[in-house]
């Protein structure tokens, strides 16, 4: 099989992502109402939530495909697992950075040791350590096997982060307010909700696109030098 040849579905996905991401930016910046108290910076929230969602989804995919590797011992599951975790780390970083920029004018500080922020930071550190672990291992097989075990244990931090606003007192706003958290929920107008769902959809598409490309890179690296990789 020629790995250099791009599947038609990936081409379509590339085009969709390249069109829809700028479209989502335009939608959020120009077609959502300005929040009554916070002002324009509140618009960062749509991509902040989407990035956090995409990051967590990536980490879950990383654990599931890690499990698939352990069951089947086929390397392509490992390529998928490590690709999702790398992309997940990028999204988690975006969520943290955009959150800090929002917090600066709203909370008057870049960072507070709030449960949601703390657990997100822990989750990101845990997945940074995943790459430190892999870089210390010598063969493709041990990297895949031990990486998969680590990815499955590490995914425990995802529900911890997601439910942290339910478990502990927090000042972080609650978006999915079912079940009730302590944090200040804020009511979204229908147009805000539409923009949020559009952003979530676009980020999910972008996630698939990025993971797919990263997967192809892993495959290419393997075929270039299977003995070192």
């Amino acid at each position, binding site marked *: 099989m020629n790995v250099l040849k791009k599947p038609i579905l990936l081409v379509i996905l590339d085009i969709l992502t390249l069109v829809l991401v700028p479209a989502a930016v335009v939608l959020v910046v120009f077609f959502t109402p300005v929040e009554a108290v916070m002002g324009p910076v509140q618009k960062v929230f749509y991509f902040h939530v989407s990035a956090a969602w995409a990051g967590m989804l990536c980490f879950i995919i990383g654990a599931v495909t890690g499990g698939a590797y352990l069951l089947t011992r086929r390397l392509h599951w490992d390529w998928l697992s490590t690709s999702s975790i790398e992309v997940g780390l990028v999204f988690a970083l975006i969520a943290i950075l955009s959150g800090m920029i929002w917090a600066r004018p709203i909370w008057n500080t870049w960072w507070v040791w709030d449960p949601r922020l703390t657990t997100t930071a822990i989750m990101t550190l845990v997945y940074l350590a995943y790459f430190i672990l892999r870089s210390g291992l010598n063969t493709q097989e041990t990297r895949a*096997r031990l990486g998969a075990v680590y990815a499955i244990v590490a995914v425990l931090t995802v529900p911890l982060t997601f439910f942290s606003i339910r478990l502990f007192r927090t000042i972080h706003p609650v978006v999915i307010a079912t079940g009730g958290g302590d944090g200040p929920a804020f009511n979204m107008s229908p147009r805000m909700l539409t923009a949020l769902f559009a952003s979530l959809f676009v980020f999910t598409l972008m996630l698939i696109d990025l993971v797919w490309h990263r997967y192809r890179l892993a495959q290419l690296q393997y075929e270039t030098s299977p003995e070192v990789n």
Partner: protein
Amino acid sequence: MTGVLAYLAAVWQVFRKDIQVEWRGRQGIPVMLVFALMIVFLFNFALQLSPDLQAGLAAGLLWVSLAFASTLGLNRSISLERENNALDGLLLAPVDRSAVFFGKALGNFCFTSLVGLLLLPIVSLFYQQNLLRLPLAAVLLLGVAAYTSLGTLLSALSIQARTRDILLPVLLFPLALPILIAAVEATRGLLSGQTLAELSSWVYLILAGALLFNAAGLLFFEIILEE
């Protein structure tokens, strides 16, 4: 039934071996204890602590020094097995490899909790806080159980890397942080006069960690150590 007994016997043998090694060499617990003491003293100067320390600081001091000291014991426990390929011999034993995990985790639990229990009067003495309370000891043992079972699991991962001497803390600290935070919060609550029942959510979080990490050991230890 005999299967269960044979399994428990294997756990016991691994545990007994580690106790014997420690008893003959006396190199694990003393090193951990002295290291923990140094951190206790270092904190005093680094953070300009006053003797009538607040409950929160005493709790944090106890757990930070214990967590750092414990990584020394965890690293040593697994690197002893690596020397002279003792691990290969252990893995050749005709038992389920998770028995090796539980044996070693039990050993690590005993060593670290002994150091922790010894730290209680010492911190009490130097910081004029009474840490010698039964519920506090219970929280300590539970927290150490969660921490060392995760540590035993991760030490089997880190030992296989080129960077084995420095890797364990990097893997262990972020994953153990939620447990450590819960342990510090529970300890602080007890020191400021709350009861265990009032602090149950933190205790349940530690308990969940202990159960999950032991389940992970049961499931994955075999996979981690396969050749």
